[in-house]
């Protein structure tokens, strides 16, 4: 089964990291990604720019409205994701728990609806 692991963090927490801490986190993410590539679980993944760089598109009555930022004000923002292949939910949650930033914010594990 495929799962999308959505990585949520308070962006302010990331900003508060010292340069050394940020470098360490970066290295840990690299190692984690390598490990799930090696185990065959990795299908894709990316870090996202902060919500200050986001743009929201809405369509009303056929008219496109483009605005700055996301609409919902939430404490934690989507900061990145992994797409993984796992035997079942237990394997997916075990992988999610190993994401280096998991101690800083929740990881949402969403099963992918199979195509066809």
């Amino acid at each position, binding site marked *: *089964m495929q*799962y999308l692991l959505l990585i949520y963090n308070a962006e302010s927490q990331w900003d508060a990291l010292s340069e050394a801490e940020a470098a360490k986190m970066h290295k840990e993410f690299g190692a984690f990604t390598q490990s799930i590539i090696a185990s065959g679980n990795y299908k894709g993944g990316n870090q996202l720019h902060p919500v200050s760089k986001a743009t929201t598109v809405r369509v009303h009555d056929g008219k496109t409205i483009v605005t700055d930022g996301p609409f919902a004000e939430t404490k934690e923002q989507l900061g990145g994701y992994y797409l993984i292949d*796992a*035997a*079942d*939910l*237990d394997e*997916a*949650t075990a992988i999610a728990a190993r994401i280096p930033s998991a101690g800083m914010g929740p990881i949402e*594990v969403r*099963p992918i*609806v199979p195509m066809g």
Partner: protein
Amino acid sequence: MANEQEPLEQIYRDEWGRIVATLIRLLGSFDLAEEAAQEAFAVALDQWPRQGIPANPRAWLISTARHKALDALRRKTRWEDGGNPDAKLAVLAQEPTVAIEEDGVVEDDRLRLIFTCCHPALNADAQVALTLRTLCGLTTEQIAKAFLVPLPAMAQRLVRAKQKIRDAGIPYRTPPRTELAERLQAVLLVVYLVFNEGYNTAGEGRALSDEAIRLGRVLCELLPAEAEVRGLLALMLLHDARREARKSSDGDLILLEDQDRGLWNRKAIGEGLSLAESALRSGPGPYSVQAAIAAVHAQAASAIITDWPQIVALYDVLLRMQPSPVIELNRAAAVAMSEGCEAGLRLLDELEERAELRGYYLLPAARADMLRRLGEWSAAADAYRTALALASQEAEQRFLTRRLAEMEAAVRLEP
């Protein structure tokens, strides 16, 4: 006819969970398994009274259910997949019957089912409903009634839980050793929730506490090495032993100290005591310690001669394992019995200041009881009024109203 259906009912209660557990593994679907098991029992209900009960009813039921499931799957594949043989169908047709009749395999299936029903990815309400439906064989209607939930809502809850298991890929397996202790906590909590629901509600609830005790026995059989499983069963048995004594004939609540201890079920107490002892010897957890507290009560001939200092000490142990204001409240009541009501009231003051139990009727009820023992009728009456405003169950309200009337009468008699 009636005496021929009775053994069938017994077989249904004993075997439903086992049969469904094995069918889920074979079919990979809760719905298909339940349907097939239901059909097999319907055939049994029709045939057995006329032809007699087969020598091995479980094997007969599993094999009949397997055939029913095969039929259903064949119909389904013909209609939906244009006649393509379904993978499940192939597996099912090949599975040697002998393997699924062996006790060991069946018991493993039952454990898988318990841990899947109590998977942390399901919410607590769904865990409870699913356990009662698939493992205990209660009907959706019975579960809805027991939890005072409308039938369509309970049916929906079960449907959603099964959909989540399927779509989120919740595995059908017993967790590995390293995760067993943690996952077992969720299972024990479900069993204890079912028990308490039954213990605290009248009528329909009765069946739930029986069901929880049955589940406790099954878990003890399946996980003999786990002390807390024995602790929980002991706790339930020791509380359930007081069932006949804790309500009057007109349904009024009778406090532990006023209960006729001759009505306590000595057989259940005997079993509870030996289980509690064995659980505590293997390293106590919260359920075993609570069972030990119930055991001290069970061994006392009256409330007065109960070993209250021992109970206070056990609450101290419990609080270290599991800090909780409700446990602190229970400890305060034990302190009042052991050291006097003034000491108990001081602890209640502290609890009240922290406001964690705001809205919990047992806090003012405990205060009222201690004030009553001290002869502070007027203050006791005030506390009973506060408790009455917060109590939600009818039996509780009747008890508090009775006590309040006694206090008001005592105030009037005062010079």
